[in-house]
């Protein structure tokens, strides 16, 4: 519908619009970000639970890693489940990042960049405000981490991977010894720990944000519950994973 726009009340300067005229709406971009973000959240939660199998010893962990490759065989081919996950996650991460960049550039333009200096000052800067403001930074940290993580424990490419890396074969997996070898190097452990803190912050804002983005009306009571759930998930995922490099460095796992 196209109602006539009221005339500019002052002066005769042409109307400059702060938004965008692309056919790709920000509403669609936000739905895509929320859905792909939730796919990632579910993935990192399940992945963390799987990682905790390391505490059941080498056999349990290796056979879990082996099962991931042979799951649903022969319905699925060798590594079938893994490849389905990889494709879904790759498409998700690309869509998530492309939408993030489009939205970020629209936001910069609408805010006004240098012409309208950022002057807002919020009462207090709580953890959730900080998490929201640092999405771009934590997102970039996560992307770099994911690349490092794949080179380290999936492809075994040095210098990311430890020296004694052994690739999985059709018969067996060496996930346990690869993991212990990798985390025995303290810089590698540090990278994992820092990345998990970034993940916690990204999840903290991302989970709350995705509920709003999906168009779900959240009252003030429900918002508190939602924020608490997001904090809980963020902490559980991050701390669950962080215990592993700590356990290796302290010699609890070897």
């Amino acid at each position, binding site marked *: *519908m*196209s*109602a*006539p*726009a*009221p005339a*500019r*009340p*002052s*002066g005769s*300067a042409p*109307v*400059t*619009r*702060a*938004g*965008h*005229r692309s056919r790709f*709406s*920000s*509403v669609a*971009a*936000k*739905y895509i970000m929320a859905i792909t973000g939730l796919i990632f959240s579910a993935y990192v939660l399940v992945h963390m639970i799987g990682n905790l199998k390391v505490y059941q010893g080498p056999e349990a962990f290796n056979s879990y890693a082996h099962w991931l490759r042979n799951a649903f065989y022969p319905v699925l081919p060798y590594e079938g489940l893994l490849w389905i996950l990889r494709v879904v996650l790759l498409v998700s991460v690309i869509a998530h990042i492309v939408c993030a960049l489009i*939205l970020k550039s*629209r*936001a910069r*333009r*609408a*805010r*006004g*960049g240098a*012409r*309208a*200096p*950022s*002057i*807002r*000052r*919020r*009462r207090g800067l709580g953890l959730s*405000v900080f998490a*929201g*403001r640092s*999405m771009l930074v934590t997102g970039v940290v996560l992307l770099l981490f994911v690349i490092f993580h794949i080179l380290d424990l999936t492809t075994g490419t040095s210098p990311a991977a430890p020296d004694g890396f052994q690739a999985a074969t059709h018969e067996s997996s060496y996930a346990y010894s690869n993991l212990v070898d990798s985390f025995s190097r303290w810089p590698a452990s540090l990278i994992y720990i820092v990345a998990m803190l970034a993940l916690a912050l990204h999840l903290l*804002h991302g989970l*709350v*944000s995705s*509920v*709003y*983005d*999906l*168009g*779900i*009306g*959240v*009252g*003030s009571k429900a*918002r508190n519950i939602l924020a608490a759930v997001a904090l809980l998930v963020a902490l559980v995922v991050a701390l669950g994973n962080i215990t592993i490099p700590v356990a290796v460095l302290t010699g609890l796992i070897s």
Partner: protein
Amino acid sequence: MKLTIDVWRQASDETDGRFVSYTVDDAAAEMSLPELLDRLNSQLVEEGEDPIAFDTDCREGICGTCGITVDGIPHGPEPHTPMCRQHLRSFSDGAHIRMEPFRSSAFPVVRDLVVDRSAMDRVVASGGFVSVDAGTAPDADTRQIPFDMAERALDFSACIGCGACIAACPNGSSHLFTGSLLTHLATLPQGKPERGRRARGVVESAEEEFGPCSVYGECAEVCPAGIPLSAISAVNREAARAAVRRNRDD
């Protein structure tokens, strides 16, 4: 009380602006911010200088005409209070106050503290209304509306259209304003026949005029009408609903 006020002076959208420092010696705690500016302006006129341009109308918090950024916060330090209802008792004697226009790409400066907020009018004009026959008032009981529904619509219709949410937003987004508009009209039976058409028009226009939402929540912190943050989710919800229902008007 004695106050030092740094005020943004700008002749028009085409020229650059800057802060100019003024002192008011005889300010009083019970003065409102527009009264402080009135006081300063009579001082300036006496000295033969140009008075500071700023917008106000009702000065009782209902019209949404006022709005400046005070010490970095749209409307000022008192939460959920329009600029015209902010008083000097929020400041201490000898304080330094910084006043500047609402900042956002969508709000070009007209002069000094006055900005052009017609982008918001264009959003409303693209469907944010109810096309009813505005003849004589109907009998109050002809249309029954449950109490909760009426309350909900009233909560979201409280928006006074000031634009503070947009000025507070790091993304220059209008979601609190747009969402409150869509929510209250979608709640009431009078708004339902045009619900889908309205959502398409209003959301498309808001995307042309303003930025996207990142759920920072800055808007609801400053809103003088206390519009709840849940309003922002109505933008995506109503847009998705209208998209799924394709060309239907309702």
